[in-house]
């Protein structure tokens, strides 16, 4: 009975999700919202205090190609300046306030580029977050009031976030709290779906029933011709009109999808237990799932197991119509592949912000060359690649068969525009790329802008990097749809060198006994001059290999 009600409201909700294709655990889907659709898996544009870091909306955002499909913002950044009351006074939600009309918005509990939790202890009633204005204690009521004022298309329930090394007892507490807060958020979600206007906050004296209508004049002043949300604070009316309440489905969160936070820290068993609790109850109103507590200090190789523990505890039926969002798992491209391989549909994106801030342009190829096959031995990282013959493939940053030029700070995925080697380079950031920056400007210009600390450098790099990441996800979706996602992952990983971890050190005595060099290979960066002479030397040393055959490991230093 509960199940069918849930399914029914799912079908009539303004935001809904369906899977179109599968390949293993990976899946392609369509997330439909009032503000547009998202083809999943997808990466959401990172925003800070509601806006992209460098790209102005709507003009520069519109230049991104493939286009930005959705936006991620952090609820916690709207606790103050502005807060829920100001947003509610505005009345038209985040899409209009932030000039993000036409984009689905996911309001998450975390900013993927910072870690807001753990500065001070949380309680059973409130979680502590550190934001731009300092520390705040956030209860489900305060959280949901802010969410309601934002009117996003999807939002994550309040979660007691813990780092990956939290002890079992702390993890158990976080599971208990998060479950209780999920119930509170579900109740509040229901309330906000069915009431028009007033958002109750702790400080308000007015009675919460009935509520005051939002004064259309106040919000109306900023109502502009181009705004899709303009004209009516109840434009989002389609929601759950089936439950007979007089102002049914007209509330600020009508049609918004609640994503239940799945927690459990870095402990596989706990993650399974936490997820099972949500699934077993199969609570009405849970519209999707949010994997929390990742990108919180766990080792990369643990991630597949942690994600699988959470999602594996959910029934296939539960997952069928519910999108899965993961936060904080976007520090590397492999992270994103891992997430997709485990069944994640939506991700936030710290990666673009971080590479852009470092002065990098992403240059990795997006599709395997025609006829590429995984090598017989899957553990051979030194696969020689053919030059991609098709002109539709983006070119490699360097000639095939040679590694990236580490002496200028490049690696397999990106080039470093700070390098003086680009001073006179009239070519685009990435040959063949059709983004705004590559169509209109040269590497030499971007290099100059970085050198002179001009904002435009970041604007152009963000335009390019956002485009490239979107193209990456598009290629991933193609691979899933065509049933070759596993091969795609193998190919992508084969392009990469081993991670930037020094090989495990054997004791000096053991090293001497096996005839290895007495010093392990250094991994600290050097000056450019040392690098140019030393890089080939180091690479050569390692390739010759130390006896004792660590042939799969190639420790080399690069700037990241």
């Amino acid at each position, binding site marked *: 009975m509960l199940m069918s009600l849930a399914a029914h409201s799912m079908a009539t909700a303004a935001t809904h999700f369906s899977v179109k294709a599968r390949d293993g655990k990976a899946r392609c889907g369509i997330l439909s919202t009032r503000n547009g659709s998202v083809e999943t898996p997808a990466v959401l544009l990172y925003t*800070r*205090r*509601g*806006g*992209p*870091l*460098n*790209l*102005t*909306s*709507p*003009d*520069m955002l519109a230049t991104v190609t493939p286009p930005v499909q959705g936006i991620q913002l952090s609820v916690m950044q709207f606790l103050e*300046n*502005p807060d829920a009351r*100001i947003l509610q*006074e*505005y009345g038209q939600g985040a899409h209009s*306030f*932030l*000039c993000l009309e036409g984009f689905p918005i996911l309001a998450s509990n975390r900013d993927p580029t910072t870690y807001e939790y753990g500065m001070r202890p949380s309680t059973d009633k409130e979680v502590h977050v550190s934001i*731009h204005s300092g520390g705040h204690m956030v209860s489900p009521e305060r959280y949901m009031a802010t969410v309601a004022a934002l009117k996003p298309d999807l939002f994550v329930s309040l979660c007691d976030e813990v780092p990956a090394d939290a002890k079992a007892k702390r993890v158990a507490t976080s599971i208990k709290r998060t479950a209780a807060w999920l119930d509170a958020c579900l109740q509040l979600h229901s309330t906000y779906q069915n009431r028009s206007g007033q958002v109750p906050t702790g400080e308000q004296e007015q009675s919460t029933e009935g509520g005051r209508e939002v004064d259309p004049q*106040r*919000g109306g*002043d*900023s109502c*502009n*011709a*181009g*705004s899709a949300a303009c004209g009516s604070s109840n434009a989002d009316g389609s929601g759950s009109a089936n439950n007979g309440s007089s102002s049914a489905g007209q509330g600020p969160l009508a049609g918004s999808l609640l994503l239940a936070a799945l927690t459990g820290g870095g402990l596989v068993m706990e993650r399974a237990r936490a997820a099972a609790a949500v699934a077993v109850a199969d609570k009405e109103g849970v519209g999707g799932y949010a994997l929390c507590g990742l990108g919180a200090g766990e080792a990369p190789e643990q991630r597949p197991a942690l994600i699988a523990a959470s999602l594996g505890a959910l029934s296939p039926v539960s997952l069928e119509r519910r999108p899965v969002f993961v936060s904080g798992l976007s520090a590397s491209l492999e992270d994103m592949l891992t997430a997709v391989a485990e069944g994640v549909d939506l991700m936030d994106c710290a990666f673009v912000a971080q590479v852009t801030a470092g002065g990098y342009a992403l240059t990795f190829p997006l599709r395997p060359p025609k006829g590429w096959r995984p090598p017989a031995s899957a553990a051979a990282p030194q696969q020689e690649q053919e030059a991609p013959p098709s002109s539709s493939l983006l070119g490699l940053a360097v000639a095939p068969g040679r590694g990236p030029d580490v002496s200028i700070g490049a690696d397999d995925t990106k080039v470093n525009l700070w390098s003086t080697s680009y*001073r*006179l380079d*009239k070519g685009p950031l990435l040959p063949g790329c059709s983004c*705004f920056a590559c169509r*209109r*400007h*040269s590497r*030499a*210009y971007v290099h*100059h*802008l970085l*050198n*002179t600390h*001009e*904002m*435009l450098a*970041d*604007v*152009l790099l963000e335009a390019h990097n956002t485009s490239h990441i979107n193209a990456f996800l598009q290629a991933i979706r193609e691979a899933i749809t065509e049933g070759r996602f596993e091969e795609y992952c193998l190919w992508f990983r084969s392009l990469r060198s081993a991670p930037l971890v020094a090989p495990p050190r054997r004791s000096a005595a053991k090293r001497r006994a096996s005839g290895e060099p007495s010093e392990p290979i250094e991994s600290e960066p050097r000056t450019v001059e040392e690098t140019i002479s030393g890089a080939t030397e180091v690479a050569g040393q390692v390739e010759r290999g130390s006896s004792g055959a660590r042939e799969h490991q190639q420790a080399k230093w690069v700037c990241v």
Partner: protein
Amino acid sequence: MIGRKFHRVIMASGSGQALPSSDSPALKFKVVAVQGRARSSRMTLPHFTAHTPMFMPVGTQGSVKGMTTRQLEELDCHVILGNTYHLENRPGSGLVAEMGGLHDFINWPRGMLTDSGGFQMVSLLHLAEITEEGVTFQSPVDGSAMLLTPEQSIAIQNRLGADIIMALDDVVPTTANNPARFEEATHRTTRWIDRCIAAHSRPLEQNLFGIVQGGLDTGLRDLSMQQLVARDLPGYAIGGLAGGESKDDFWRVVSQCTAGLPPGKPRYVMGIGYPLDIVVCSALGADMFDSVYPTRTARFGVALVPEGVLKLKNAANARDFRPLDPSCSCMVCRRYSRAYLHNVVTRGISAAAILVTYHNVAYTQRLTREIRTAIEEQRFPEWVRSFLQTMFPKGDVPGWVQDAMAAADISLEGSGSGTTRTNPPAPAPLPTEQPPVLAAVGASV
């Protein structure tokens, strides 16, 4: 005495006589409408035909603080500036030349102007000294002694390739209390213009403008103008202002210079960016302005609006859902509220700073567009009155503006001004039948 060609300026309406114009090797200037001393003109440069009066945003180091060249085009900027000193420092004029010139390097298809580099050196560097040879200074890289000569300044600008290049002038801050120094600078500027002309290797592709100096001394100013005009340059700048001088002194120098320079050639008042100053100088017959002010003040959270400025960080804006300027139709004013920008401007989020910059650039372009249209439609005095009324709703138009408008033959009757004065009254304006060139206060004929 002045020895210049005398063009009689005629009102655009009614008379069949030609409006002033000039034809230089790389620049054609054509006044298309006149009203009083103000004029609306077309300046055809190698890369673009600009409409004046115009405001030129400054792209100091090869970009206008965060804005793309496409945005600048969309906002209808006609000419932008590059700073020679900064660009020679990084990336170097040689590199820019290898890249095909500044236009190609930054991908800006319209007009470009570079300054001489002298002013920046004097204002930015320790121990910068001006001698007959040039400007000596300490290299910012390693502190070694360096010298910028007129020849080198022109050579650098030739490599950068802008449509308009500026002569190296001996600029003395107007606050200096040293008449002998002003006299020396006036004569030296003339000697240097000859060196600049001799060094200029691309006269068919780049226009060398001279810069009128002379401080606040009307005699020196006249002398400087006379000597520059005798060189028959494609255009003239009025320099040595936008320092610490009083507004009263400022407008009088501008007025004298616009009156004394040939009407058929463009007049460029350097370092002007406050909207009020742009309006006053346009009324007095100036054509071109540049300043970092609109773009710089944006990054400090200050938006230009018809009433003056809007300080976004002010707490009153936290709940103000109106756009920055309800009368502005730029992307930012159509889509964003003060309340949103209040929280994010000056917080290290570049996109927010760029949004305010975008509006401020749009504002200055709209301002000069309105000035041109008002002159062409012969309703410029009315437009000025309306502008001043909006900016000074209590009627407290500053005395210097009233005096300047009087000299520009623009009555402020009915704009509510004249009820309060901050300066002693100026001499009564001369009758309008006289050629405007003689109406300039202090001009010696």
